[in-house]
Each structure stands twice: as C-alpha cells, then as structure tokens.
C-alpha cells in the first residue's frame, strides 16, 4: 500500500473497544445488543472501563459478562442491586452498575431495587424492559401489556387475574434517594440517542455522588412477541410507549452527597472522596 494521502476518510463511528470480539447469543434484532453497545460507548466516553464492576442478572442478559470487557459478578435472580450494594460499600473507588431485565428487576427483585434506591446507593441500574421473560421461553412479566399474549397468558393478559403492567421507574422516582430516573427506548435512531444521554446522565449521578440512578430502556423481544425484528420495533413505537411514557421521571442531580440530616452539603463544601470525573 502506498502512503496514505493526508485527506483520508475519517471515522464517524466504530465498534466500541469494550465490546468483546464475539458474536452475541441474542436473537437477531434484540435490543440487548443495542443497550450493551450504548453502555460500552458511555463507559468509554467517561473512561470508566478499568474501574467498573458490573453485576449481571438472570435472564437473557446473564451473558453480558461475555460481551462487555469489564469485571462482572453474577447475581441470583433479582438480587443484583443487593450484590451491587455490597460491592459499592467495600470498593469506594469502583464504578458499580447493574444490568437487569424486567423479570429480574420488577418481579423477583422488587425488594432489592426499591431498597437500593431508597438507600440512595451510588450505583447505576440499567433496566431493559421488553415486557416478557425471554430466556425461559416467553412468559408473562409484571411489565407485560394488557391483552399481550405470552406463553403464560395465552389468551392475553387479563387485568382481573394478572393485574396491570407495573410502572417500576415511576415508583422508584418518588424515592428521595433516587438522583436520576429516566425511561428511553431503542425504537429509532433518535430515541437511541436520547437513551444514550440518559445512560450518561445516570452514570454521572454516581460519579458526582448524587445518589441512585436508573434508566429504563423499552426494548423488544422479536421471538417472544412473535414478530420479526422490524415488526417488533414498530410495535415499540406504536404500542409500548403508550403504556410506558418516555422521558426523565426524576432528576435530583447536582445536589451532591447527602448529609446525615438529609440535606446537601453547602455549595463549595469539600468534594466527596468517592467522586472522580471520568
């Protein structure tokens, strides 16, 4: 090859280095791949890779530890926020995040997520909500929509015996310990862009010592929903966002670490030891 001309094309986008060099097991078009990629991009932007200890859930994304080159701890189903709490308390310099699905966070894990949020733990929770239990074959989840057919609601979810879809992030948003709570989706490029900003904001809430942060990402499950990948994305746009509105649900960032009495340190006070800019 001859010498490269100075006017070479420049790179607009390339695969994040934090993604390992393997093909994921996720189904074609599965939103997990997109969220993994966004997480890798944000962690690289903030130079957090070497400091991160991440907690993997039970669900399709239990395999996340094969796809993101970070230190990972596997947690029992639903317990990721508690495992993350343990890590956070003994490793003040680490960046701690959980990556959870809707069965993990909103069903078996409701106790752990609520109390990690209530304690204002300095962890960032990425909550991928596709309204179904993908890994185990497509059963109903607490976030499954009314009327949605799943293998355990074959005639469609009926509110009379299965109740209503659970708006987890709205529930968490009311807790004072929550510094940031937002909901995004992966339905189209602009939604993906906004979701990435929310993930970044959620990471910064931890770095600045503001408190607990959670980003719910409305995602798809083509196989579980019985659709092609393209149809499932359309379904996200047309149907799912009507039950789960997008946007920032709580923003208590900028307050710094709480004091024993619950207030924020005065402006100009000493910076908390655990915060480091990325």
């Amino acid at each position, binding site marked *: *090859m001859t010498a*490269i*001309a100075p*006017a*070479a*094309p*420049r*790179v*607009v*986008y*390339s*695969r*994040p280095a934090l*993604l390992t060099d393997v*093909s*994921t097991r*996720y*189904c*074609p*078009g*599965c*939103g*997990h*791949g*997109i969220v*993994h*990629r966004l997480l890798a991009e944000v962690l690289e932007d903030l130079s957090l890779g070497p400091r991160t200890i991440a907690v993997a859930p039970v669900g399709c994304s239990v395999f996340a530890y094969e796809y993101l080159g970070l230190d990972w701890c596997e947690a029992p189903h639903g317990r990721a926020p508690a495992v993350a709490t343990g890590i956070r308390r003994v490793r003040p310099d680490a960046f701690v995040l959980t990556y959870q699905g809707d069965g993990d966070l909103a069903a078996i894990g409701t106790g752990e997520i609520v109390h990690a949020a209530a304690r204002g733990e300095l962890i960032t929770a990425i909550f991928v909500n596709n309204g179904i239990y993908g890994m185990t074959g497509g059963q109903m989840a607490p976030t499954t929509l009314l009327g949605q057919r799943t293998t355990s609601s074959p005639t469609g979810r009926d509110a009379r015996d299965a109740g209503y879809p659970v708006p987890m992030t709205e529930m968490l948003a009311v807790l004072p310990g929550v510094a940031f709570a937002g909901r995004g989706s*992966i339905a*189209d*490029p602009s939604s*993906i*862009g906004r979701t990435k900003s929310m993930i970044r904001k959620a990471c910064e809430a931890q770095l600045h010592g503001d408190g607990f942060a959670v980003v719910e990402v409305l995602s798809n499950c*083509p196989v579980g929903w019985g659709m*092609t*990948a*393209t149809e499932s*994305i359309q379904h996200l746009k047309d149907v799912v966002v009507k039950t789960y509105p997008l946007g920032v649900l709580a923003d208590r960032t900028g307050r710094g670490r709480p004091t024993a009495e619950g207030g924020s340190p005065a402006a100009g006070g000493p910076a908390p030891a655990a915060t480091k800019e990325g």
Partner: protein
Amino acid sequence: MTLSLPAPSRTGLALGSIPWSPLAIATERCKGCELCVTACPKACLALDQSAVNRLGYHPVLLTDPTVCTSCAFCARVCPDAVFTVYVAPKGVAR
C-alpha cells in the same frame, strides 16, 4: 480495527486515487435483523440474498455508496455493532 486506513471499497468510490466506502461492515457478525435497513433514511442498505455468513444469515450490504451520507443511523440501531462509518474529510470531493 485499523481506523487510519480507508475502508476497502466494493463499488469503487474514489477519494482522489484511494478507493473507499462510507461503511465497513463486519459481515460475519451480522444477523440479518434488518433494523438498519428500516433505519436508513436513504434506503441504501439491504440484505445480500446471494451470501450467507458463517452464522447462517444473509448479511447486510451497502447497495449504493454514492447516496450514503454517513449519518451512522445504521450503526446506531445495530445490535451487533457491525458498522464502521466513514465520512470524506471536509473540502475533499467524494
């Protein structure tokens, strides 16, 4: 990923004397989900029905590099991060 070299071109866009393409596609990682095909505003992506990669899918193909604007929407929606997107440097004609 060798980012300093231009992407090899299948269709022969030329930058000066260097052939290049706006997209480099890791075809062996593509799962043929077509999210990029839907997302592309210029409709210049399609599955290559004549090829099957080692995962068993028809990988995506840039059908017309001349209309691609390097918007990177394809890269944004791709769950498998198969795209590397290039743009011609300012002031240089494609």
